[in-house]
């Protein structure tokens, strides 16, 4: 099937976004996508996910006769495959240019950097050596295959265990995993590829380009490096001119990224080792996140009503008897009342604030009015404090008069008076709250 063409509008948008230092998935210029490493149940099998790009790595070994010119060295074989499952544009059974390029790059990155001790793979010099085969399958293509593949290859190699072999005279014994624990390969260092995409003739640079960024890029620079900052391979493609400074800067970035990725790999390997030792669950099935297609709609949860009555009775029996409720009616403001305790009544506050606003609006008049009405107000409150806890407000303005049970009538009076005299209206709510507490 043909590749989906890139529309003009996507191209334009991507380039404009890159100019504004924005990327489709919200990453920064030098950010990698999320790397996830999961291991299969067998040794030497792993899946590396770089965002949506997924690569399956599988290492296998075989006893073969060595090459004539290298009688004491084991053989390493790398094979990357781009299946149609990864993207419909990949054709099966054909060596595309991309595939050849990627395979060459992988070999240079992993074999030519001598990261694996091939001498230790020799069993009988000139007769039998181990051939280690690394198969990499691209499961999903979302750009930057080479980085994901190089990580998958090195992780699979680190994870791999080959059967133990002993040589006694002419006799070579191959042990099954039950007889002797399989031995890991000896790995000197871990080379990891880091890709840099260049746009607008090298003006802009992005680390870890995704598929759509790869389509609009002008050039690509791949640097393979290990954590000791030794460059194993460097390759520039796409035919753009790079300045010396740019290459140096890229190698610096690569150093940082490789260090991070190496740490991640080591952590993943240790984790897997630990889980295996403890006999916990491992394998791909454990590491695949469940994305439920039914998540979109909220389902009505069925409620278990089988033994509700018993449970309710149980709770009632266990619970403490309810505390005695003081049912003294409290009249905060005219028209609002409260029975019981603990309920913050907000009605009074509301009126309070309203009044404040009013005061702010027409200050002068309000003051005059207040001073005129002061006498009556005081009288009323006096009466209230003397015999019954009923205070009436006769003013037409929204005035605050607080009624309290006759515990401390004196305070009420001062409160009312102060309210009348318009001293510091902002303090009123605080005072009132105090009063409430006293009442309770």
């Amino acid at each position, binding site marked *: *099937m*043909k590749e*989906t*063409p*890139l*529309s*003009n*509008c*996507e*191209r*334009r*948008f991507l380039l*404009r*976004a890159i100019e*504004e230092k*924005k990327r*489709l*998935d*919200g990453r920064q210029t030098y950010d990698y996508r999320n790397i996830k490493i999961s291991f299969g149940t067998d040794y030497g099998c792993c899946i590396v996910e770089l965002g949506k790009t997924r690569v399956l790595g599988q290492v296998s070994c075989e006893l073969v006769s060595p090459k004539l010119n290298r009688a004491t060295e084991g053989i390493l074989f790398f094979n990357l495959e781009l299946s149609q499952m990864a993207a419909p544009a990949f054709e099966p059974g054909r060596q595309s240019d991309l595939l050849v390029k990627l395979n060459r790059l992988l070999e240079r990155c992993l074999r030519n950097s001598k990261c694996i001790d091939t001498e230790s793979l020799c069993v009988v010099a000139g007769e039998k050596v181990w051939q280690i085969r690394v198969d990499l399958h691209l499961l999903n293509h979302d750009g930057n295959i080479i980085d994901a593949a190089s990580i998958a290859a090195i992780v699979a190699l680190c994870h791999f265990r080959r059967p133990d072999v002993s040589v006694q005279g002419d006799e070579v014994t191959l042990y099954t995993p039950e007889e002797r624990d399989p031995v890991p390969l000896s790995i000197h260092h871990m080379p990891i590829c880091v890709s840099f995409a260049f746009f607008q003739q090298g003006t802009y640079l992005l680390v870890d380009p995704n598929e759509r960024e790869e389509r609009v890029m002008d050039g690509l620079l791949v640097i393979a490096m290990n954590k000791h900052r030794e460059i194993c391979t460097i390759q520039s493609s796409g035919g753009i001119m790079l300045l010396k400074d740019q290459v140096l800067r890229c190698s610096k970035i690569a150093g940082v990224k490789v260090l991070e990725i190496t740490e991640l790999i080591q952590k993943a390997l240790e984790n897997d080792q630990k889980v295996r030792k403890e006999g916990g669950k491992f394998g791909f099935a454990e590491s*695949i996140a*469940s*994305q*439920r*297609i*039914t*998540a*979109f*709609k*909220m389902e009505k949860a069925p409620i278990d009503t089988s033994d509700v009555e018993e449970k309710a009775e149980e709770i009632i029996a266990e619970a403490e008897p309810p505390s005695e409720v003081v049912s003294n009616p409290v009249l905060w403001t005219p028209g609002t009342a409260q029975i019981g305790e603990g309920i913050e009544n907000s009605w009074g506050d509301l009126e309070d604030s309203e009044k404040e606003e009013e005061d702010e609006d027409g200050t002068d008049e309000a003051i005059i009015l207040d001073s005129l009405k002061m006498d009556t107000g005081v009288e009323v409150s006096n009466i209230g404090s003397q015999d019954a806890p009923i205070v009436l407000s006769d003013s037409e303005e929204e005035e605050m008069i607080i009624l309290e049970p006759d515990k401390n009538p004196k305070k009420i009076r001062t409160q009312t008076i102060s309210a009348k005299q318009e001293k510091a209206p902002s303090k009123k709510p605080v005072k009132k709250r105090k009063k409430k507490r006293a009442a309770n």
Partner: protein
Amino acid sequence: MAEAVGVAAESLAGDRARAARTVLDQVVLPGEELLLPEQEDAEGPGGAGERPLRLNAGTRSRGRVVCGPGLRRCGDRLLVTKCGRLRHKEPGGSSGGGVYWVDSQQKRYVPVKGDHVIGIVTAKSGDIFKVDVGGSEPASLSYLAFEGATKRNRPNVQVGDLIYGQFVVANKDMEPEMVCIDSCGRASGMGVIGQDGLLFKVTLGLIRKLLAPDCEILQEVGKLYPLEIVFGMNGRIWVKAKTIQQTLILANILEACEHMTADQRKQIFSRLAES
């Protein structure tokens, strides 16, 4: 997927057809056999005679049942051919059994007559444009199928442009054909989509969910920023907001909301509204 596996195990263990009514909105798997309600009633609910549905039961026609995508009639049985959730639409009239179909979770688009899709022009050859719609082969689009286009007055369409159009021919093993006008010759929103904005791909299921009349996501998205948006039934969404940042945010929300529950979506939208 654990859920689906559970269902599979159950259906294998049961080894008999389930009534379509009982598995509505549940996950069904390819190969499962379904029973329609009439069949159940006729045979008596729960009775021993619960047999697979006979679509050609001539004597007992109680109205037509339409089986949509994902379901297939095989002899006198009704089989599921796609993995997804079984859906049912009540009939409009008094008679008939309504429509049953499977809402599957696929990415590959298969052209359907009448669908509105977003295509990318891949070639201009004489009188027709070749448009990639994500199907197995490109659709053809005549240059006369635009509003106001005549032999003299050709529409300005370049290779790589986005086209919003409708399928008029979409048959098996045939090249599908698109138009950008309705039956009255009006554009009614179709035609070439502007040069700005972002095109991205989502699953076909998400498009259907977003376009469902009871979907609140579009309203929520509309509250965030002013935007232009086009949904193609082939899983493509084109979105344009004032700035690149906003466009990116919108695209990412729409992509992400597929596997979120209603609560999570509410949270996301409220968080975005604050920022």
